[in-house]
């Protein structure tokens, strides 16, 4: 297994280099530059700016400088802030959103999928399965505004936009621990997160429930399940201990693409709900031709996705004895 992990990590290096090269040259060969929009900038000032950001050097030199010093490079549009700083400040917001969305997706998806698989082709199956179909076909950018319209503008249950993070000055630590303010505190810090996470997670919940249903249906007809039942194992025990491990295999292999999809989805969600995360920044920085930040974010996301895919692969082999690390 160690050999497998090592080989995969080594394999990552040329892939990431290719990603960096593609991103860099795509940015730089396209017309336009980061200072084009400032019309009042004179030729001399532009030259100075170009010098300051090393834009006057040959491309290959810039590329080498970019990939070797990426985290410490300055952003073009946020003066005096490095790429590393911006990412480490903005990513936790996106990560929080992604984490809650994934929790919702896995929790609801597996629950509905298992329920649907227990009584196939009855109403217990049809109701969650049709919900899943709706979830798959309703794009996040339709669902997000609709949820906002109903739950925050009409009913006023949740804030429509914005992002508080974990700060809640009105709750001190002693309040939370000693004066039973725990639940209000949790409600406070999560209320602004409910709609974005549900919107982002719903599609994946739907997809995961379909995968779970299919996987469980395959497993539940196997002989060893019948044996377990014959030996008197309770229904719950059969599901939890004997079937889920095999039934969730399709879900595990879907997790890799799902993570990449969640990141793409966060671009839209962050725009709709005005959440100050990395996704919104990425789209803005591309428009602004903020070369350093674009490259930084792309490399960060690429590394993250490749790394998470590796974890998924390892999980898959550990859960499925039929597979081997090759």
């Amino acid at each position: 297994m160690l050999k497998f992990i090592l080989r995969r990590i080594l394999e990552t290096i040329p892939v990431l280099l290719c990603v960096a090269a593609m991103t860099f040259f795509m940015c730089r060969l396209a017309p336009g530059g980061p200072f084009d929009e400032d019309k009042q900038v004179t030729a001399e000032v532009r030259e100075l700016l170009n010098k300051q950001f090393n834009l006057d050097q040959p491309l290959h030199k810039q590329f080498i400088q970019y990939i070797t010093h990426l985290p410490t490079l300055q952003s073009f549009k946020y003066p005096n802030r490095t790429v590393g700083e911006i990412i480490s400040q903005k990513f936790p917001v996106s990560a929080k959103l992604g984490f809650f969305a994934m929790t919702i997706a896995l929790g609801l998806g597996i629950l509905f999928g298992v329920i649907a698989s227990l009584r196939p082709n009855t109403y217990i199956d049809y109701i969650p399965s049709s919900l899943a179909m709706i979830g798959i076909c309703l794009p996040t950018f339709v669902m997000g505004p609709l949820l906002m319209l109903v739950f925050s503008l009409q009913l006023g249950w949740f804030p429509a936009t914005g992002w508080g993070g974990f700060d809640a000055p009105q709750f001190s630590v002693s309040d939370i621990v000693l004066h039973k303010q725990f639940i209000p505190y949790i409600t406070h810090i999560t209320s602004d997160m409910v709609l974005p996470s549900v919107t982002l997670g719903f599609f994946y919940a739907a997809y995961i429930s379909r995968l779970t249903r299919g996987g469980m249906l395959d497993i539940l007809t196997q002989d060893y399940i019948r044996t377990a039942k014959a030996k008197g194992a309770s229904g719950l025990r059969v599901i939890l201990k004997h079937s889920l491990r095999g039934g969730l295999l399709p879900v595990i292999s879907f997790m890799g693409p799902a993570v990449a999809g969640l990141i793409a989805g966060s671009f839209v969600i962050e725009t709709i709900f005005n959440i100050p995360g990395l996704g919104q920044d990425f789209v803005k920085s591309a428009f602004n031709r903020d070369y350093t930040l674009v490259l930084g974010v792309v490399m960060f996301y690429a590394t993250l996705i490749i790394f998470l895919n590796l974890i998924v692969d390892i999980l898959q082999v550990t859960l499925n004895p039929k597979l081997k690390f090759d």
Partner: protein
Amino acid sequence: MNDTSTRPDAPDTVEKGESLWVGAWYRLRKNKMALAGGVFILLLAGLSFIGPFFLEGDYYTNTVLEDKLTAPGGEYTLGSDHLGRDQLGRIIKGGQISLLVGLVATFVSLTIGIGYGTISGYFGGKIDSVMMRLVDILYSLPFVIFVILLMVFAKDLGDSIDEWFRARGSEFSISGQWNMLLLFVAIGAVEWLTMARIVRGQVMSLRRQEFIEACISLGLPTHRILFRHMVPNILGPVIVYTTLTIPAVMLLEAFLSFLGLGVQPPTPSWGLLIKDGADRMREAWWMLVFPGALFAITLFSFNFVGDGLRDALDPKTSKD
């Protein structure tokens, strides 16, 4: 989904090689949801491509500022938008654009996927493992990010190309259609991976069959074996997956347009209409609800047709 045992017994006379399609049609006809989806798509295509002939030329850009944000009913069947443009007209034009992008970009991805998958599966061995490893790597990349970058950075390239031609005294102009062309290429270049995998698997299993061996021993040239004898035999799964690719492509187009990267205003696409509606849903719910619902129903229909076709054409592999 359907019980295949309900097929009538095969007639005594031998059918002329159309049994797959006849049987598929028989199974598809029994799938009410797939049929309903198919009918809806046909109606929608008719409305968006033939409908405009019965409308005035500026039906989707005609701006009447006094009528802005008119509620549905009356003069504007589906209301008007923030510039007083008829929402129905814009939805029709938007549907035309969205369907067009869906079809053309799917065709691009189909061509790449079939070509790549056929070559990889047919030659096998080293070529195959290198080609498939590449697909694996591409799968693990954040492709949407590249599409976004491509759409942003290549946006002004159309103007540059025009200039290049103008400098050489040519009237050739591409910038008007540039963004659409870019969409076709960018989306098509992303969506071919799964198709390549499916085609490769099919070709590999076909390769071991006798009629291909016969072709080889008859000395047919490789390209003839590939495109004359292989490709027609993998048509079933390809058709199924194509039907499922179209909604994925339309979704990606709407996603890009929603972020302001796809189709450029004043030309509408459903993604743009939904974006406009989301921005103004407080005062004009109809701007969000109508295009959003229509888009969702369209995706629904394509998915149902795709699932139905899978059950009909390939009863073995259909699972749910």
